[in-house]
C-alpha cells in the first residue's frame, strides 16, 4: 500500500510553522492555501513533494510549506527543479515564482522549460510588479502604469506568459485568481496530475505597490470556452482575451522528457572532493 493510500493528509499537514511575512492583504496568502489544499486533495505525502523557488515575495512559499524546499537563486528555479525531477522522478515537483523572477531574469529558462517538458508544475504569482524590491515594473506590467519609479509608464508592450508557454511547448496552460482559493486548488490538482510541464499563472494582487489590483476580484471571470488540445487555437483565444479570463486553457498530449538515469559511478565523497578549495 502506498503512503498516500495509508494516510489521509489534511491541508494543515503541508503547512510549516514559519509565519509568513507578506503584507496583510497580499494575494500570495491565498495561493499558499490553494497549494496546500491541492496537495491534500491529491494525497501525496509532504516528504514526497519538493517546492522550488527563486527570489521574490512569491518565492518565499517553500519556507511556508512542510515539504522539501529550495529557495534558490533569482530566476533560476526552473533549472534547479528540472535537474531535481530528472534525478528523482518519484518526487512531485512544484516551482513557485513571480512575474519578475519568472519572466525577466528567468525568462530564458521559462522558454526552455516549456520546450523540455519535464513533468513538473510551474506556479507563477503574477502581480505585474516587482513586490520584493519595492515596486519596479515587471515584464507583465501595463505600459501606462504610472508610478514614482516609472513616471508616465514604461510604454513597453507587456510579455504574454500564456502565449509564450503555448508557443514554447508547455503541456498544460491555465490562469487562475488568488482570491478564488478553491478554483485555484482545483486547477492546481489538474496541473500537477497532468504529465509534462504544466504552467499556471495565478493573478495575485500586490496590495502594497499595486493597490489598484484590489479591483481584480471584480474583473476576473470564468472563460466561456472549454479547454482545447490545439495549441494554435488556445493561443488565438488568449491573444484576444481581456487578461482576466480564468480556467484551463490548454491540455496537451506530449510525452514528458525523462532521460534514463544512469547509476552513479562516483560516491558523494568523490563529488565533494571536486569542490574542495
Amino acid at each position, binding site marked *: 500500500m502506498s503512503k498516500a493510500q495509508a494516510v489521509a493528509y489534511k491541508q494543515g499537514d503541508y503547512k510549516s510553522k514559519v509565519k509568513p511575512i507578506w503584507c496583510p492583504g497580499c494575494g500570495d496568502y491565498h495561493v499558499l492555501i490553494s497549494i496546500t489544499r491541492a496537495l491534500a*486533495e491529491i494525497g501525496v505525502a509532504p516528504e514526497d513533494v519538493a517546492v522550488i523557488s527563486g527570489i521574490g515575495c512569491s518565492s518565499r512559499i517553500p519556507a511556508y510549506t512542510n515539504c522539501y524546499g529550495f529557495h534558490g537563486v533569482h530566476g533560476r528555479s526552473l533549472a534547479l527543479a528540472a535537474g531535481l525531477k530528472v534525478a528523482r522522478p518519484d518526487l512531485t515537483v512544484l516551482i513557485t515564482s513571480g512575474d519578475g523572477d519568472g519572466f525577466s531574469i528567468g525568462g530564458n529558462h521559462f522558454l526552455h522549460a516549456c520546450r523540455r517538458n519535464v513533468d513538473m508544475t510551474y506556479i507563477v504569482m503574477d502581480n505585474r510588479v516587482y513586490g520584493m524590491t519595492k515596486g519596479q515594473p515587471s515584464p507583465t506590467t501595463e505600459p501606462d502604469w504610472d508610478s514614482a519609479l516609472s513616471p508616465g509608464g514604461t510604454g513597453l508592450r507587456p510579455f504574454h506568459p500564456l502565449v509564450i508557454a503555448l508557443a514554447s511547448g508547455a503541456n498544460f496552460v491555465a490562469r487562475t485568481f488568488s482570491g478564488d482559493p*478553491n478554483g485555484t*486548488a482545483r486547477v492546481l490538482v489538474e496541473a500537477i496530475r497532468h504529465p509534462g510541464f504544466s504552467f499556471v499563472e495565478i493573478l495575485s494582487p500586490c496590495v502594497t*505597490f499595486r493597490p489598484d489590483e484590489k479591483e481584480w476580484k471584480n474583473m476576473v471571470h470564468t472563460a466561456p470556452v472549454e479547454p482545447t488540445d490545439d495549441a494554435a487555437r488556445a493561443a488565438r483565444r488568449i491573444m484576444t482575451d481581456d487578461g482576466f479570463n480564468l480556467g484551463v486553457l490548454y491540455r496537451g498530449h506530449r510525452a514528458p522528457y525523462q532521460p534514463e538515469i544512469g547509476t552513479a559511478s562516483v560516491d558523494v565523497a568523490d563529488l565533494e572532493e571536486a569542490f574542495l578549495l
Partner: protein
Amino acid sequence: MTNLTNIGDLLAHAYQIEIEAVERYQMLADQMEVHNNSELEKLFRKLAYHEGQHAEEIRTQMTDANVPELKPGEFRWAGPDSPEAVDLGDIHYMMTPWHALQLALKAEQQAFAFFDEFRRSASDPDIKRLADEFAEEEEEHVAMVLKELEKYPEPDDDWDDDPDPPVSPE
C-alpha cells in the same frame, strides 16, 4: 444552494466551516503579530478560540453519525471559499479592531446564511433540526460580534494614513 442530503454530509460541512474559520483567524493573528498590531492579534486569536470551541462541539456530534471523509475539493460550497472564512484580500496592515470585527461579522453572517438556507430547504426533520441548531449558533456569533463592535466606534477616514508609506511619493 449547496446540496447536502444527509446528516453525515451536513456534519462534515459544518465541521469544515469551523476548521477553516479557525485556520483563517489564526493566519490573521499571525499576520498581525508579524506586523506588530498586538491589539488585533489578540482579537483574532480570541475569534479563532471561539470557532475552535464550536468545531469541538460539532466533532463530538460526529461520532454517532456516518460522516464521510471528504477531500478539500469535495466540499460543496456555493462561493470561492467556505462561508465562514474571512477573505484575506480584505486585510490591511493598519486596520483597526472595527475593521477586523466588520470582517468577522461578514464571515459569521455568511455562515448563518449557509445554514439558514439549508434548514429552509431541508425536508428530513432530523436534518432540519440539526441545521436549525447550527443556524442558531451562528446567529449567536453574529450577536456576539455586534456586541463587541459596540466597544469600537467607526474610525475616521484617515485611519490608513501612514507617515512612512511603503510606496515612495511621486
